[in-house]
């Protein structure tokens, strides 16, 4: 399930608000919020579309992992799916 929006990296572009197929995010004052986590289908598409590598989807489909954001960034886990499919940081898809 989606677990992290990294406040440091997120620019508030709201791409994820559009791109999530199950409408999990709401646009927020500055950055989006995870508004309907239960609706997350663990498809990793928001991660793929986030141009800033600011999102982390845990592989666990049914329960929460509560990961440590600093470690995810240090170990380059955040952004690893984009890298694996060949989409580079900053490559912003058009909505």
């Amino acid at each position, binding site marked *: 399930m989606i677990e992290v929006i990294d406040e440091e990296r997120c620019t508030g572009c709201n791409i994820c608000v*559009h791109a999530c*197929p199950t409408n999990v995010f709401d646009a927020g004052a500055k950055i989006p919020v995870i508004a309907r986590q239960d*609706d997350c289908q*663990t*498809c*990793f598409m928001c991660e793929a579309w986030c141009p800033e590598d600011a999102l982390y989807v845990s*592989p666990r489909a049914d329960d929460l992992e509560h990961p440590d954001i600093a470690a995810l960034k240090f170990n380059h886990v955040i952004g690893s*799916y984009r890298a694996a*499919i060949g989409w580079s940081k900053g490559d912003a898809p*058009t909505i």
Partner: protein
Amino acid sequence: MAIRRPVEQISSAGAQEFRADVLVLGGGPAGTWAAINAAGRGASVLLVDKGFCGTSGATAPSGTGVWYVDPDSAKREAAMASREAMGGFLQDRRWMARVLDHAYDTVQQLADWGYPFQTDEYGLQRYGSVMGPQYMRLMRKRAKQAGAKILDHSPALELIVDDRGAVRGASGIRQQSGERWIVRSGAVVMATGGCAFLSKALGCNVLTGDGYLMGAEVGAELSGMEFSNAYAMSPAFSSVTKTRFYDWATFTDASGELIPGAQSKGGRSNIARWLTNNGAVFARIDKADAPTQAAMRLAQPNFFLPFDRAGIDPFAQRFPVTLRLEGTVRGTGGLRIVDDTCATTVPGLYAAGDAATRELICGGFTGGGSHNAAWAMSSGFWAGGAAADHALSVGEPRHAAPVKHAGGVALREGAERPVDSGDLIKSVQAEVFPYDINYFRNGEKLSGALNRLDSLWSATSRAGRSDALRVTRDREAVSMLATARWMYRSALERKESRGMARRLDYPGQDSGPKYNVRVGGLHEVWSRRDANQPAPILEAAE
């Protein structure tokens, strides 16, 4: 490509109202190909998606094999022959050949558009597979470039018909604003995908059989709904139902003992049986050598994502697996198609991709085969083209006769109170998830489940419309309920084992004439056997 007639917005008071020649419901591969071809023929096209066209549906998050076979008659013959037995010989050779032709050309089209096909060790392009995220991002872009207008997060809830019963549009809701949308169109392409019953199979939670329900509400027939019990393997904790690499796995029980006969391919039922009767099943993908492992990583990055993130080396360590229901997504049932244009039994309504039956090319089995992708691109393209021709020939929707909103359950204003969709979803899942009912089918268990589902329908059928936040989920629940009834009714009608529709009480294949099972109806579900004959060749619209 000529871009003609734009979609018109007629009003936005109370509801956003649009007029278009062709309305496409669903923006997966089938829907986007439909939109591109319809727009290419000069029609104004509006495409609405429940989620987001480009990320939503079963293709977007996956790597997808395409039925891509060189136009060499021996190779094509072998490709067609290789799957006929598995599909129970219900396929239609002429349709298989047409789809092989079209898929081949389409892949070339993708290459021309700049899709970055990978190259193999000989430097040749590997045209047989596409990455979902890249493919669907490109399809969104091309649909827009072709002139289609896209509304995301805008599920269709019901069809609109004219006084002769022809389909003339649809209406739904804009999830993010809560406003209603209404589209008047000359034709509709149903491309809403299959039904996986909210099992969290990869990308499938938007696929709840909505198109089957909307179709049945205007009288459309379905076909092949007994071929609807595809179960796919995933790590127990994960949504990633990519099954191919489990061909290289060894399956063991909790204590590490081999499970007899357990295999991903050809022994999946032994895994289902073990999960039902004995408990956890563990896999280790230990039959892949180092080069194979490297090729696997390259081919399907998202297969490894859950393992990498959970700190599991799937080649060396054992991990628990489960089988998630993918229903008709990797089954073959759907709206019945009556001719080469992918027309349904209702005028003005065309069906494509998983929303349509895939029996014509797959018979009663598809599993992971690349046929689905080839079918989605072909049927989508044909349906879109025919819908455009139909719409342009019937003329401007604005002069249409009075129309009726065809949606029933959970949409009527002022009716009884809304359904409790959470409860209803659980009740339907309790009938369709258990391997004991849906994998290992027999007449008694199927009848029991169908009776319970029929009672649920009776209790639900007068439910009224809920608020904007809940109406979509309510309709999803009702669609799942209707789909489950058609599925079991069809499974009972087929008194034999053929394709994936296996019956413990009829283990053999009936040696009599082959037939297709048609099904439909809402309050009274009916089923019928039609002789399995090659589809009549009608003058195609192309």
